[in-house]
């Protein structure tokens, strides 16, 4: 059946993350910055807390498709407790993975590695990278200092 082609993209773990996302919500103390790209119809608000360059808390909110929601959930699991430099490196590893490159370092992505199937659905790559791009911007904005940075992004299909 034609929809069986979707099995690789919409694996059970991904659907679980999408319907019960981890770290869902907003952090109490923080400012929200809105990044709007209206092409697509996903909105993600990302908030995080840094302490001495380590991500001590992270949360995301908004409404999005299964891929963007699952990816955000997986991303927050992976980066919490990590130093911002390592989180940025993980963002690059993820980005290369969803564009089709295989690499052992993808294991570090945890459940995020299961989104490698997105490479076969080029129109959805930006759904998968949305949360990681928001993370990069949040980290770049806060420059590793003890700030709370909040960012929203829209998926750009």
């Amino acid at each position, binding site marked *: 059946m034609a*929809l069986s*082609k*979707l099995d690789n993209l*919409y694996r059970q773990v991904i659907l679980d993350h999408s319907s019960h996302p981890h770290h869902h919500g907003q952090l109490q103390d923080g400012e929200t910055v809105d990044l709007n790209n209206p092409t697509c*119809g*996903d909105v993600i608000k990302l908030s995080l807390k840094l302490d001495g360059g380590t991500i001590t808390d992270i949360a995301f909110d908004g409404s999005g498709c299964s891929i963007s929601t699952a990816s955000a959930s997986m991303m927050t699991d992976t980066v919490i407790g990590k130093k911002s430099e390592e989180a940025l490196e993980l963002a690059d590893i993820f980005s290369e993975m969803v564009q089709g490159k295989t690499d052992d370092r993808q294991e570090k992505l945890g459940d995020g590695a299961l989104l490698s199937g997105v490479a076969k659905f080029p129109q*959805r790559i930006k*759904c998968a990278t949305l949360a990681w791009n928001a993370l990069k911007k949040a980290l770049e904005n806060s420059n590793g200092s003890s700030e709370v940075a909040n960012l929203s992004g829209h998926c750009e299909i």
Partner: protein
Amino acid sequence: MTIEIEKIRSDFQILDQIVNDEPLVYLDSAATTQKPQQVLDVIRAYYEHDNANVHRGVHTLAERATADYEASRDKVRAFINASSRKEVLFTRGTTTALNWVAKFAEQILQPEDEIVISIMEHHSNIIPWQQAAAKTGAILKFVYLKDGELDMADLRTKVTNRTKFVSITHVSNVLGVINPVKEIAQIAHEHGAIMVVDGAQSTPHMSVDVQDLNCDFFAFSGHKMAGPTGIGVLYGKEALLNQMNPIEFGGEMIDFVYEQSATWKELPWKFEAGTPNIAGSIGLGAAVDYLIEIGIDNIHQHEQDLLNYVMPKLREIEGLTIYGPEDNHRRGGVIAFNLDGLHPHDVATALDMEGVAVRAGHHCAQPLIDYLDLPATARASFYIYNTFADCDKLVEAIKLTKAFFGV
């Protein structure tokens, strides 16, 4: 079938292909339409035999190119029943055309003047007005919806003696609803306002008579009516176009040019600076010919037939919500919908796996989508080459999608 559907489909080679191991079912004509071989042949023949720059040349090819280009303008004039060819301006598309009208608004709006548009407008009929309001101190007001249609009672309160422009879409690219623009033009004129109509989703699908509508401006795109991309039309009443400053300046639109000043050419060329999209306009003329041969009323009826066939089947699907009017007579062949529990992106990807091409997102109508309190919608849209079998495939693919995701 109202039209010779098999013959028509055979004119569109592009439909005869496999995507993701399934035959293509193209349901995204509201985004752009496919082009029949007849239109492609005319464009090709132009480049192979008649290509030259228009209006200035003395040689034979230039005369042929100019004749072809201006003949297209005459075809468009007749197609929309403009009273004069001076009122038919070629543009890049509907967006450009609406931007030009808003620029004219900037010329004449005073602070506290009002512009009235609707919440269902495409961004091309919102942002230029926001800009005009910001630059002139005019106020931008919105008419809202009732039961999936324009709230005419609301419109009557919003259009006042301070209103200078009313700009409304003829057919919504999301809700599919056909707006009573003739009646709205009357209301606008009663209050001394200029009436602008976005005809992008109407002109390809139903008969348009700008004199009967009595609108002051009317805009549409070639690529949404079986013509090429990069070409569209702004119709404007001659008196207004005479008042309006050109938007772009350069060659072709001038009469005398001195060091420090220049004078403009007469209408319509006053608004056509630079070498135009000659092949595009000739392609648009060919598209007009193609649609007239099928019969524009037949095209409208065909889409009504498809709606009457597919809507009951869609409305039977549990968890499917369709936006816009319930009555098919009130809509064109555009169906925006959502499946409970599934984001439109996921719906669109699943349908794509079944060969069914639909759109998902905001459809360049964020204010409308926000007003409907939705993240986004999926959208299927029909044109002359769609069949009852395409409708069946859409319904089947939606059901399979529901089953796959367990929603």
